[in-house]
């Protein structure tokens, strides 16, 4: 009898143990904000952002950006989700004599609806960052880099002489303040920046020896719109998230002629047409700054320039000489053969 009771007890205990183990073994997971499910975790396609090229405009770069996963810019320890930054490298050559202002805008493609809001962020950097060449082995595209690496690179830039273009200015002397500003930027209205936002990038004229510049347009995703993209069918959402990158040279004095080549092989030529447009702010040729139309500039040795005083409607040329120079009305090329020359309107 005793044996029978013990036997029944053991069986009952085994059943109770099995039920208890089953309770804990079948628990649902609680995750971070952006996980989907375990099976998809390693092949997580956050969303494909198609960068479309509009045929009518040759200066729009089109490319497809695939983000394997995404997380906040500041979070770099989620191992599965750090391959997020897309870097589009653009070579810009100014074959003209005068500097051009390059503006970068990211606009919604034709047909996009609610795109442009939370999720995609971008900024433009025109300083070479060697760590951009690092790539995690799992990425599909050579332009994808580890966000952790990217963040380090950005931090390095922020603490040195960087030019980070977005709307507003960063405090580059204090990395934590810069990060705070960046966080504010990321947390702010997530609209696509238009051409009027962000400081233009100066591309010196060929005479200044710095006409070829590398410009990096960096895309990444912050979570916020994640939930809409947490679908294995996210590829079908391409049309909703198309963007176009537009590079234009700001209206400039005649002579700017930019060729823009991105690292995907697409190229475009932008001819800056001479227009009756004034521009404000500084322009630099070899370190000297235009004061204003009709004002004075100083060219460095070897530089050539053509200047149109739009306000006065006259052209100026300068012949090298010593002292100050009186400008003629002829439209021509100014070349300095030696010492810097100064041009003044008369």
């Amino acid at each position, binding site marked *: 009898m005793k044996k029978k009771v013990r036997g029944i007890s053991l069986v009952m*205990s*085994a059943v109770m143990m099995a039920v208890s183990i089953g309770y804990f073994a079948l*628990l649902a*997971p609680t995750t971070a*904000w952006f996980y989907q499910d375990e099976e998809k975790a390693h092949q997580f396609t956050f969303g494909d952002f198609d960068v479309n090229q509009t045929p009518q405009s040759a200066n729009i770069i089109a490319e497809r950006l695939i983000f394997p996963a995404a997380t906040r810019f*500041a979070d770099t320890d989620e191992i599965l989700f750090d391959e997020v930054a897309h870097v589009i490298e653009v070579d810009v050559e100014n074959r003209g004599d005068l500097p051009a202002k390059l503006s970068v805008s990211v606009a919604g493609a034709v047909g996009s609806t609610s795109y442009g809001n939370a999720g995609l962020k971008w900024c433009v950097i025109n300083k070479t960052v060697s760590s951009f060449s690092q790539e995690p082995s799992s990425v599909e595209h050579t332009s994808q880099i580890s966000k952790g690496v990217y963040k380090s690179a950005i931090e390095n830039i922020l603490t040195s002489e960087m030019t980070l273009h977005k709307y507003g200015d960063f405090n580059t002397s204090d990395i934590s303040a810069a990060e705070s500003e960046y966080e504010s930027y990321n947390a702010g209205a997530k609209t696509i920046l238009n051409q009027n936002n962000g400081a233009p990038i100066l591309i010196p004229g060929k005479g200044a020896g710095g006409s070829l510049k590398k410009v990096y347009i960096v895309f990444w995703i912050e979570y*916020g719109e994640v939930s809409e993209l947490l679908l294995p069918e996210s590829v079908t959402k391409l049309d909703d998230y198309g963007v176009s990158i537009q590079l234009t040279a700001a209206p400039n004095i005649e002579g700017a002629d930019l060729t823009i080549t991105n690292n995907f092989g697409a190229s475009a030529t932008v001819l800056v047409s001479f227009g009756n447009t004034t521009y404000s702010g500084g322009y630099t040729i070899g370190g000297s700054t235009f004061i204003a139309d009709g004002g004075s500039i100083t060219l460095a040795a070897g530089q050539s320039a053509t200047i149109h005083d739009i306000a006065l409607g006259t052209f100026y040329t300068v012949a090298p000489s010593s002292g100050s120079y009186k400008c003629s009305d002829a439209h021509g090329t100014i070349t300095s053969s030696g010492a810097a020359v100064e041009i003044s309107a008369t």
Partner: protein
Amino acid sequence: MKKSTFKNILQNFFIITSVLLFAFVTFLAASGAKAFAVRTDSMSPLFKEGSVVFVRRADFSDLKAGNIVSVKFADGSGVFTHRITGIDAENKTISTKGDNNNSDDPEQSGAAQIIGRYWFSLPVIGFLSLRIKSDAIVFFLIAVAAALFITRLVIQSKNKANG
């Protein structure tokens, strides 16, 4: 120690453990608590990946900033368990943040998404569900139960045969 005594001790231990564990699980189920296996360290160090968190239902009006809650994603794709950083009583929404994250979660959550308020957590045991596929576990448990049942039958019939 006699072999039979050692065997009895083991069996007694197994019986007691099973009963206690089952009682604990029954208590949890009866209390209405929900349990989740923690998959990330967003709430570290309070509870880490592999822990199990237990939450109980709470009225929205009883929730306070600082409470930890389990919340369904708006699209129903999963659950996250984070700390409340702000409550909008008028709109009945909450802001949340993982203790180990740098800032608030990107979206507020509505009252209907809140599953429950944190009760307590247990470490490590959550790995059971996180690491092993659920169908494998079910198959294993059924196999164990079947083996025990068959063993019992065989022993019973043996005893009967021996008189």
